[in-house]
């Protein structure tokens, strides 16, 4: 289990390779990577604010739940904060389990909870100004399926 909340960019290939190399008896690894979309060239940057301390606590609690519920053998969450440019990776999640159904479910669960329960706030800085990203009803509703 590894949780990193950091301002620095991370190397998706290296993190994925290291995770897969360490999963032991797992037969299935799922990763998710979230990227800053350029929104047709109108976005200049995405600024991500977070709540130091609570962020780590909230994500660790979410990871513990995922591990217990789907017999996850290993899990990884990396989430950046600070100023990111279009195309940069915001975060990644990886899960390892014996079978694919558990690895997929755990990764989707982690993503749904990270979206709505981890204390991050995104601000889009565009050519016409800056605006806080509003939480989506669909993201809150997604928690209902778990």
């Amino acid at each position, binding site marked *: 289990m590894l949780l990193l909340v950091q301002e620095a960019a991370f190397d998706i290939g290296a993190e994925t390779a290291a995770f897969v190399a360490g999963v032991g008896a797992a037969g299935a690894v799922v990763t998710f990577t979230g990227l800053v979309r350029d929104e047709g060239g109108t976005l200049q940057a995405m600024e991500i604010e977070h709540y130091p301390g609570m962020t780590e606590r909230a994500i660790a609690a979410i990871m513990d739940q995922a591990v217990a519920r789907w017999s996850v053998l290993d899990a990884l969450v990396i989430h950046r904060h600070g100023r990111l440019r279009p195309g940069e990776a915001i975060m990644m999640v990886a899960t390892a389990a014996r079978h694919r159904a558990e690895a997929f479910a755990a990764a989707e669960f982690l993503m749904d909870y990270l979206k709505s329960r981890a204390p991050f*706030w995104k601000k889009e800085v565009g050519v016409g100004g800056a605006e806080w990203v509003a939480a989506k009803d669909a993201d809150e509703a997604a928690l209902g399926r778990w």
Partner: protein
Amino acid sequence: MIDVLYFAWVRERIGVPRERIQTDAATVADLVAELSAREERYALAFADLASLRVALDQELSSFDAGLSGVREVAFFPPMTGG
């Protein structure tokens, strides 16, 4: 004395990321009412509680929760991680 933290547009409206506040408020809602009565910027930030979330000592909580023993209160809009 209680540490009060603000994030995202709540922080921008109130104008500071955190402050220490002397209060006898019994609940989060009482604290919100007290601050809102104190200055316009708080009243603006707390105008619509349905669009706000609160954490007590870094755990998500609710506006009717008690503040007894709480050292850190944080106000922020719904989270947009991931």
